[in-house]
């Protein structure tokens, strides 16, 4: 069993202080839940890197190539000669390429978001509904009761409003 200490804070600054102290005290599995994105999280919990940009780039690339191949392939397979002009006409096909670059870029960005943010959630996870309204919540996984007490003390020092204990299979 892993216990999860949940600290409910009134403001973001104290939640950040608590998260930073907990991290410094060796607690590795930490999460901050908040009604708004908190500024300065990365300074406390370390820089976060996202893979979304790679999804966007490769999505756009795949879209661009497919767009051009779709238009050019159609023109070659169902040739429609017009006044001796080329069958693969670059200017109009670039427009199709452009549109599909953006379409696939958008779709892959969404895919990248879902994968990297682990959404949709398949199994139930720790959640504190007040964090969607006006509370700032720090959750920390504790291996044993001693760890829990240590975490609780850190949370209280930072000015927590309420500490809760949740049990999670682990």
């Amino acid at each position, binding site marked *: 069993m892993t216990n999860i200490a949940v600290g409910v804070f009134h403001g973001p600054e104290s939640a950040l202080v608590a998260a930073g102290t907990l991290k410094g005290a060796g607690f590795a599995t930490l*999460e901050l839940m908040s009604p*708004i994105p908190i500024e300065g999280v990365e300074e406390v919990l370390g820089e*976060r890197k996202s893979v979304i940009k790679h999804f966007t780039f490769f999505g756009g690339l795949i879209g661009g190539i497919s767009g051009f191949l779709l238009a050019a392939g159609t023109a070659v397979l169902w040739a429609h000669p017009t006044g001796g002009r080329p069958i693969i006409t670059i200017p109009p096909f670039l*427009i199709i390429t452009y549109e599909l670059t953006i379409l696939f870029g958008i*779709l892959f*960005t969404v895919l990248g*978001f879902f994968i990297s943010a682990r959404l949709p*959630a398949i199994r139930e996870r720790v959640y504190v509904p007040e964090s969607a309204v006006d509370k700032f919540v720090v959750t920390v996984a504790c291996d044993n009761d001693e760890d829990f007490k240590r975490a609780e003390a*850190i949370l209280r020092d930072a000015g927590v409003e309420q500490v809760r204990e949740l049990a999670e299979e682990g």
Partner: protein
Amino acid sequence: MAETNDLKYADVHRDVVRSIVETGPRYYVALAIAFGITLLCFFFPWFYQLYYGIGAAGMNHPGVWGTYLASFIFWIGLSHSGTLLSCVLHLTNSTWRKAMYRSAEAMTLFSLMVAATMVMVHLGRPWFIHWALPYPNQMEMWPNFRSPLLFDVMAITTYLTGSSIFIYMGSIPDFAAVRDRTSGWRNHMYSLLSLGWRGTDKEWHRLHWAYTFLAVLIIPLAVSVHSIVSWDFAMSIVPALHQTIFAPYFVVGAIYSGTAGIVTVMFVLRKYMNFEQYITEVHFNNLGKLLLLLSLIWTYINVVELFTGWYSGTSTEHEALKYKLFGYYALLYWEMIAFCAVAPLLCIFKRFRTSLVPMLILSIMINIGMYTERFLIVGTSLSRQYLPDAWGLYVPSLVEISILLGSLALFVTLFLLFVKIFPSVSMYEVKETMDTPKTEPVAPSEGSPA
């Protein structure tokens, strides 16, 4: 922002959730009227036209483009400010965007839907619409990708997909917030829509980047969509249409009418959804400045269009110009100039920009003017081409006028449904503009680590 300083996070939450779950009789009456008009003025005449044939519309040789296509451009244009403006303001970190962008984006989405429906109405045989899509079929028929009409299909499909995704992604945290305060079918619906969002630092980080990338992709997309719509006309060799300035002209016109549309929607939301504390004079002031700038650019392009037509020295262009300024439809032209070029000059005065009712009237006048512009481009050009013996007049039939009014009601119906499903003011972004709650200091606990 100063105007939300006296509000707390919980107040925002309460007000927005209330706007979704508490529904008064006025709402049902409005929905019933809008839906009734949609059925009566949109679907009934459309079925009449399908039954009796496209002849029920006033289109005939040489005027084979009528109000359906004018409405199509109008609705596409109206769609332009929502998502586009929201993306630009998001990337430039404009805080005043936050209270109004959700509704503006919804306007984009529903305008696009109505625009797509107008194409169906214009088609005559809408059950063959899938012929415009590239998919393997037994007829071995594939679309011609050199045609601006196909550019249109690709651009609008992409824009509709992009706009839907953009509004949905921005709403996920709010769906989660509403999920926790609802029960029954609403709770199930918001649980599904919020995808299990918890508001963790990681989720916010990912959402920020995904949302920013989407904004970066959608801005050039929106510009391309109306450029492509303009090429439906500019790529033809019809006098007064075959002009290089058409793409920027359409893009500016679209953003212009879309911004005016936002003013109208903001006024209605503020008044009837009780959002006075969120949608304030600041928004109207800023939108007024934007309208003034857009009206000046739009006027400039109109003058340039007249000048280049005149300077070309060709008899067909001169004839088209003369017809536009003094011909059968001249009254409409001058109405457009009065509504879209002259009246918006009032926005020079701050007092006007912050007066809500005059701004509402102006926004409606601009959109009437912009509809007229589209009608003049589409409805009158084909009827007056090179050969005088092939000239004609286009006057919309009762079916067409009714469908135009019905399309407005369709838009209103969709919007009314939206305000009861989506949080129409973005809760988390309004909260971001407010002062964050401060923690009161507490005494250190006993036995705390040093």
